[in-house]
């Protein structure tokens, strides 16, 4: 296959990485939490989609309409999961040291992952969306229809979140809490509720992306950590709080991974991603699109 093909494949998947990462960056920017259980929201979203299809059809095959209908379900369910997580557990350490929030969310990550294994085994599962012809041919490049739809879906999810933050009253409250929680409280914003809402939104977009990932790749109980780290790579690349940065970062990461897999071998993709992560942190921890880091030696 030509290299352009790998790049196109990567860009299509990369938009989903970007959507997941935007959620990760949102919670980091607003509540100042690095949520190590973020990848588990992707996993749970994927399972919501899978089990919805399973419940309605008795198989893992679905028409496009049905498959797409599971996305809002995943978004809604995972929103509730995220809201509850912040309200019951994470809020207890929100104002403490960041290390403690890392540990709490890592603990949650292990628990969710292991409970998922107990409940649904460690087998990968996929929602098989039925098409008459599965892919388009554009200028010599093969574009799978489902990947194209997932790409558009990821962009829609990201745009919807962005619009929510920019245009609604609740979105303004979230941005106010991000800037200064105490001042936000003074003007009458319920900070705890706003933070939990943010957590819910962050989880919801990951859950929605997870539903699409189940349709184009698969869902597996232990997939979470990898998505958390990918999000971290993307956010570090794009800068915290920068939606365009995350989008570019996601597309780029997808392209790099697919090209590595195609040109070299798929077993090296993770090693390459993690190495990029370490290098990025060292070279520019505030992100290529973020503010300059002060106080360098």
């Amino acid at each position: 296959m030509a290299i352009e093909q790998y790049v196109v494949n990567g860009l299509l998947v990369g938009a989903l990485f970007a959507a997941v990462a935007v959620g990760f960056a949102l919670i980091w920017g607003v509540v100042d939490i690095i949520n190590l259980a973020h990848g588990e929201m992707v996993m749970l979203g994927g399972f919501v989609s899978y089990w919805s299809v399973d419940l309605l059809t008795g198989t893992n095959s679905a028409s496009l309409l049905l498959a797409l209908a599971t996305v809002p379900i995943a978004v809604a369910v995972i929103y509730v999961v995220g809201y509850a997580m912040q309200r019951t557990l994470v809020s207890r350490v929100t104002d403490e040291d960041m290390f403690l929030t890392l540990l709490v969310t890592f603990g949650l990550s292990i628990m969710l992952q292991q409970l998922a294994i107990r409940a649904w085994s460690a087998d990968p599962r996929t929602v098989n969306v039925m098409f008459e012809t599965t892919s388009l041919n554009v200028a010599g490049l093969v574009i799978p229809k489902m990947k194209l739809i997932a790409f558009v879906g990821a962009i829609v999810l990201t745009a919807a979140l962005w619009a929510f933050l920019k245009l609604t009253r609740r979105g303004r409250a979230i941005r106010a809490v991000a800037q200064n929680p105490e001042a936000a409280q003074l003007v009458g914003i319920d900070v705890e509720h706003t933070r939990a809402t943010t957590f819910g939104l962050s989880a919801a977009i990951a859950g929605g992306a997870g539903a699409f990932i189940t349709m184009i790749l698969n869902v597996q109980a232990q997939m979470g950590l990898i998505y958390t780290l990918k999000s971290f790579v993307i956010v570090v690349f794009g800068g915290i709080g920068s939606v365009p940065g995350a989008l570019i970062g996601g597309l780029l990461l997808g392209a790099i991974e697919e090209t590595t897999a195609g040109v070299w071998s798929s077993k090296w993709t993770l090693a390459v991603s993690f190495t990029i992560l370490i290098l990025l942190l060292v070279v520019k921890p505030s992100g290529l699109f973020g503010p300059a880091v002060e106080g360098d030696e």
Partner: protein
Amino acid sequence: MSTTNDTGADIVDGILDAAASVYRFFEGRGLQTLAVFTIVSAIIPLTNPSGFEMTVITELFLFGVLALSWDLIGGQTGYPSFGNMAFFGIGAYTTAILVKSFGIAFPLAFVVAAALAVAFAAFIGIIVLRLRGGYFAIATLGVLLASQQITRNLDVTGGASGIILLQTPTAQEFYYLFLAILVLEAIVVMYLAQTRFGLVLNAIRDDEGKATAMGYNTTYYKTAAWMLAALFTGVAGGAWSLFNTFVDPITAYNTAWNVEIIAMALLGGSGTVVGPILGAFGLHGLIRMVIDTYFTGWQLVVLGAVVITTVIAMPKGIVGTIEEHASAMEYYKHGGQAAADSSDADVADPGDGTVDDSGGDSP
């Protein structure tokens, strides 16, 4: 502190009072305590324990080493590493390859393994120790996962299927080996805690900027602590590979153990010597004796729950909480003045000032 009515709080207070008395008895008797511990541990194999008991106790020593090593960098220096198991894996694989493919005797293989782990730590340390807080944690997690992936993909390491080792020492030799590593490390950490070196590490934890401003080359100190942690973790990994008779990427770079050792250090009380060891014995004992038997397959769920509960309910750990209580008692005994200053100073506090969450800026 009275127990006139038996409410829950009074019971907790009573337990804390008793624990504080025990704590004060042992305070300042570190070496004697360690000597008694060593003698008792050395006698246990002579009492004909079962093979299972020997294995479990050996594992307790192993986790003691790992938790104490983590605490050196995570608790004493305030750099919350999520990647210590990378050193363990490197130690394990180096030993396994040297013993299996090159037929080198295992004591020599340990030395090489430890040297490699330390060299790796020095190299990685230069890169990641510039980061703080969350950035440092994630970078070290990235180091661990990258090491795991690279090991899985190489031929010399046997790929995903790993290496099987057959010629290994007896269970008793392993028992004494791990005990020796643990005791040696405990002595080293205890000694360092009294020296300028240990104090500078704590200063870095509390406020790295100030430590630098006072003229200390913090890079030197934290890199040294990081390499020391790697030394003991690497040796433990090397010994473990033979003990386990098998290494593969999943078990040698065990991400579950990676969190387990942090949980042990925190549960026991990070920033102390006895805390991480107690935490390791307690948590691993619980896992092996209770959970493996009665809740097979739920180990990691319980581990996650323990991590969350510890962080939320007792961020100072058992030893830290008791220490705090002991100094509070001292304070009340002296009519609410004085005394507090002397004991306040050594209250281990893993929370405050361990990390700077403002970003990855290096001072």
